[in-house]
């Protein structure tokens, strides 16, 4: 199974404060362990919500609000995608993670939908379409990195 492991933001991260060298070093070594174990599939950090926006859907209407989103306690600072055997394994890895902010921090682990999680309603046509979309996106992502 794959999981998305989400690092929650706090006031300092939202204010644009960069992690110090100690945290970066500890996190670098944790990431190396994840990669060596074959667990790590991807990871990204996000700019503070001040640089972002939200789009709200109401019927055919779209309302755009610029960040920051000060009312949200659920803002995301960054994430990993891991391949693990179980939620328990993911939790074990997260417990070994260095405290990502050095202060009170929270990490959320969420299992990702895989094709086999869907029943017969996810028809062979829809599956083929999904596979095409993913394969093409991966190609573009690789081209982007090159």
């Amino acid at each position, binding site marked *: *199974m794959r999981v*998305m492991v989400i690092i929650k933001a706090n006031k300092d991260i939202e204010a644009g404060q*960069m992690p110090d*060298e100690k945290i*970066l*070093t500890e996190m*670098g070594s944790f*990431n190396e362990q994840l*990669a060596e174990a074959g667990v790590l*599939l*991807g*990871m*990204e*950090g*996000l*700019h503070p*919500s001040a640089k*972002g*926006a939200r*789009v709200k*859907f*109401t019927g055919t209407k*779209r309302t*755009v609000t610029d960040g920051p989103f000060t009312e*949200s*306690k*659920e803002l995301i600072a960054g994430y990993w*995608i891991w391949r693990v055997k179980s939620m328990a394994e993911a939790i074990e890895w*997260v*417990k070994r*993670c260095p405290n*990502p902010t050095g202060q*009170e*921090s*929270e*990490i*959320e*682990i*969420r*299992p*990702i*939908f*895989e*094709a*086999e*999680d869907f029943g017969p309603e*996810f028809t062979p046509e*829809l599956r083929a*379409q999904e*596979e*095409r*979309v*993913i394969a*093409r*996106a*991966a190609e*573009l*992502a690789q081209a*982007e*990195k090159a």
Partner: protein
Amino acid sequence: MRFMMLMIPKGYETAKPGTMPDPKAVAAMMKYNESLQKAGVLLALDGLHPPSMGARVSFSGGKPKVTDGPFAEAKEVLGGYWMIQVKSKAEAIEWASRCPGGDNEVIEIRQVQEFADFPADVQQAASGFAEMQAQSGQRKGS
């Protein structure tokens, strides 16, 4: 520049384990996904099981504490995401606006930190990050 479009469906914070998306909504969303793909902007996408199937680990006083989902205090949760490559935030907002979202849904657009965005000292401390990302082989299905 890369942006994440974070889908936040209101009500998903209390969804039961095993909750599946509505097939009609999925079909509409797949059309939208294909339009992202055809335009060459789509880099990755995933949907997440409800938080009742997840967990949170908090780090207070250096000790990890595990809480199983659902998370009673959460007013909003992530339902899934798209990673897109576009020229500007305005273009990202345009793409988000074309999504066949429901009245309970909000898409948050967040710019992804690129290595070049960091100051020199942070770049040095994080050296090897880009290689690690490349090696980790983002986005391989099960």
